[in-house]
């Protein structure tokens, strides 16, 4: 399928579904090393996003849809993940502004802009046990797949898989940003919730290609 507005809307709808399904898991993770609201925060945000999906105009581009996600998350999430994902989607929208259909280079540009937006906002580095530890490997894997001449779906698959692996790799880390940083060594053995939701969102992008 072409990665056009139909795909973008499917991705967003699936994102809302998958966040809703994992709401409790995400909150459980956040209860261990945070304040126990990441699932509620993300679900509040993506429920609002899902409601607005129908309001997108008929000629909306993928960038327009991503911008709607950005502003809605910023206004509704209520936790650190709101400004962080909000900025990610905002920068992603900017990277593909005006494009009707996204090719491989667009995807890599979009993912890179999203990751850079999170870093700009949150100042986290790789290894700080944050969502960046899902996003940075995702960006790198997508770029590698693009350079290897892979198609759009393969690029999205590479990104999702790398995000999942990056998220799992947060388990042994000590957190240096966000609430988990209060815990010091006690954060070891727990997965960063924001990295898990990030991986879920990137997996939804893959799944939306078969909708």
């Amino acid at each position, binding site marked *: 399928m072409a990665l056009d507005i139909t795909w973008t809307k499917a991705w967003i709808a699936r994102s809302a579904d998958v966040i809703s399904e994992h709401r409790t898991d995400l909150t459980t993770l956040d209860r261990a090393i945070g*304040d126990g*609201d990441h699932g509620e*925060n993300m679900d509040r945000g993506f429920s609002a996003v899902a409601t607005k999906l129908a309001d997108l105009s008929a000629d909306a581009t993928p960038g327009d849809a991503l911008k709607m996600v950005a502003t809605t998350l*910023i*206004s*509704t999430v*209520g*936790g*650190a993940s*709101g*400004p*962080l994902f*909000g*900025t990610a989607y905002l920068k992603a929208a900017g990277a593909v502004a005006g494009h009707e259909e996204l090719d491989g280079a667009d995807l890599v540009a979009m993912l890179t802009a999203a990751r850079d937006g999170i870093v700009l*906002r*949150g100042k986290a580095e790789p290894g700080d046990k944050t969502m960046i530890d899902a996003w940075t490997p995702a960006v790198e894997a997508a770029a590698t797949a693009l350079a290897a001449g892979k198609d759009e779906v393969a690029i999205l698959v590479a990104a999702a898989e790398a995000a999942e692996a990056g998220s799992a790799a947060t388990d042994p880390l000590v957190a240096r*940003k*966000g*609430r988990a940083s209060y815990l010091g060594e006690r954060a070891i053995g727990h997965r960063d919730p924001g990295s898990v939701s990030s991986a879920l969102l990137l997996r939804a992008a893959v799944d939306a290609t078969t909708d």
Partner: protein
Amino acid sequence: MSVGLVVVSHSAKIAEGIVELAGQMAPGVRIRAAGGTDDGGLGTSFDLVMSAVVDADDGDGVVVMCDLGSAILTAETALDFLDDELRARVRIADAPIVEGAVAAAVAAEVGGALAEVVDAAEASAAAS
């Protein structure tokens, strides 16, 4: 006219309490609370921060006080969405929210300029 203050806390109660406490020593300063989420829970609200900043500004600028890290993220995001003219006179203080707000409010009350009010807030971190 004076520099205004916005208090961004994860808790509506904390933000409101700070507005009262700081206001006691600075009755002439526009101090606005932006505490809790839109529905009154623990967290921060972009929309509350936006409207508090607009409301606190009187032309002399606004100093924003935040509690935990995610309050800073929300405040910085709100700043990005302000029009350039207002944004140019808004500062986020790197200061403890209660102690900094009281110090900033007094500095604003006595006519301190934007940078002086920020300095007063930030110096409060050093005091015991």
